[in-house]
């Protein structure tokens, strides 16, 4: 029991961050799973984070209403981004979304009334670990349902070949628009969760570093199933902590090398449902060759 508590003291915050990062990764996954590479989760997180922080401070609302508000704010931002950017082709979409991240930071810096500007904001509320677990479970449940519904099937079709999907009556832009709204809501909620975990947010909180972290988490974990981003966020968040205890001097370098090695050997990520099917087919072929009843 004693050691368990020690462990908690040492790694509790890491676990909390892993869960927050899982929300961001899921938000990125939401659009990636329809074939759109976008960094705008950072934008949605900023909207959700500042919205939640301000409404807790000035409207005195509670934790869960703040999450709800952040989710709505993010969803609205998501639909605006989708309306503006979905007409671009995939390469431009990636560039434009990255540019929007830069613009967001400048906007945050220059609207001190809303965001505290350079000085940032102190957030007068924290999120208990239990609530964070429930939040992540709820969001994961949504993704589980999406995956098993008609939306999930259509999203996979659009991602693999949007033109073919459209000739079967699936509207690719419509599916991707929905994906952006979902991404916005989840990203906004994640932004609020981050604000309540850090209890201080500033323009630097929601910036390039975060954009790259969440995309790396998503792809590392695997972007072909909703469980991938959660695994990826856990691994990517735990990596520096582990490296710190093994190779304290060069923890960042080690983190980069691990990411590199995993991606080169498992480019589809740690969780890959397709690999299971391929292995099964390979086994079947082997047994068919060995079998006498062919």
């Amino acid at each position, binding site marked *: 029991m004693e050691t368990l508590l020690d462990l908690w003291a040492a790694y509790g915050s890491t676990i909390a961050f892993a869960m927050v990062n899982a929300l961001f990764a899921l938000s990125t996954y939401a659009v990636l799973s329809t074939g759109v590479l976008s960094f705008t989760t950072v934008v949605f997180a900023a909207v959700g984070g500042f919205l939640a922080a301000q409404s807790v401070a000035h409207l005195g609302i509670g934790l869960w209403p703040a999450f709800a508000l952040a989710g709505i704010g993010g969803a609205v931002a998501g639909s605006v981004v989708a309306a503006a950017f979905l007409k671009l082709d995939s390469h431009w979409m990636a560039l434009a979304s990255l540019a929007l991240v830069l613009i967001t930071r400048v906007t945050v810096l220059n609207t001190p009334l809303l965001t505290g500007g350079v000085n940032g904001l102190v957030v007068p509320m924290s999120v208990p670990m239990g609530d964070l677990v429930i939040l992540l479970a709820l969001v994961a449940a949504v993704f589980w349902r999406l995956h098993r519904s008609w939306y999930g099937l259509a999203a996979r079709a659009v991602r693999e070949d949007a033109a073919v999907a459209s000739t079967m009556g699936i509207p690719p832009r419509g599916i991707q628009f929905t994906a952006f709204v979902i991404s916005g809501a989840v990203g906004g909620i994640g932004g609020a969760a981050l604000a309540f975990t850090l209890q201080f947010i500033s323009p630097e909180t929601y910036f390039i570093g975060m954009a790259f972290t969440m995309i790396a988490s998503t*792809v590392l974990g695997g972007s072909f199933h909703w469980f991938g981003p959660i695994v990826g966020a856990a691994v990517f968040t735990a990596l520096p902590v582990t490296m710190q205890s093994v190779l304290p001097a060069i923890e960042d370098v080690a983190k980069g090398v691990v990411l590199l090695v995993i991606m*080169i050997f498992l480019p589809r990520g740690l969780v890959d449902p397709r690999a299971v099917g391929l292995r099964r087919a390979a086994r079947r072929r082997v047994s068919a060759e060995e079998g006498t009843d062919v």
Partner: protein
Amino acid sequence: MILFLEQALNGWALGSLYALFGIGFGLVFSTLGILNAAHGTYASWAAIVGYYVVERAGLPFPVAVGVGVAAGGLLALAVDQIAFQPLRSRKAGMLGALITSIAFWIILDSLAGFATEQQSLAFPAASFPSGMIDIGPMKVGQLQLIIIAVLIVCTIGIHLLIQKTRLGTAMRAVGWNEVAAALGGVNARMVILLTAFLAGATSGLAGVLAGAATSNVSFTLGEGLMLKGFAAVVVGGYDDVRGTAIAGILLGIIEVFVAQYVSTALRDGFTYSLLLIFLVARPRGLFGSAGFVRA
């Protein structure tokens, strides 16, 4: 009026650095289809290597520039072969390469931190052309003029290379479709290597010059160039080096004027507002062509 012109030239020089860096970044994006997060570190490392050539080996600045350019190119080659080449055969697309480039960004950035002992170094003022030249009533830095000339030469050279030579045709072919390029007799592997080297070398050149011009040799150098170079690429249209050059220069001039006549705090705000306007109103950039429709 004189101040105005002097500032315009300063902005032009600053913007030329952004553009020079952006050309390399855009080249990799349009030809190899890679959004390379590690690109900024090529510039940092070129500047660091150049600094040590001057400071430790005591060699003259032009040698430092040459070594820095080579370092940028070779680093880009190494990153391409280690991080991108294994993914090409697996059709991992833009995504896989983005992640491995993020990995290299993390690695090279923190190694750059070690190489400069987490400090910002500066080329000794006597080591590079830091004097002023009188052009009529104006006083202009020698290095500024050199930077402006370098961008013009590089832009024209690379534009001609891409549009007028067989290698350039091959580069454009690879940009569309590596498989088709390979079938059409283009040695895709060679084109990839040359493109990577060229992109790394131009960004390395931008790195050494920026290191001298801004008295900042550290890992933050590459990050700064990357953000502004990226903006130049988006505003200019990534598939045309002329667009990147013009957009970079414009961004530099706007930055200097906003800082001079409006406020330093709003400097980045202007740059990125321009970026936003372009994204919404002219998303393919100044020279951007209409997209290639796929069915």
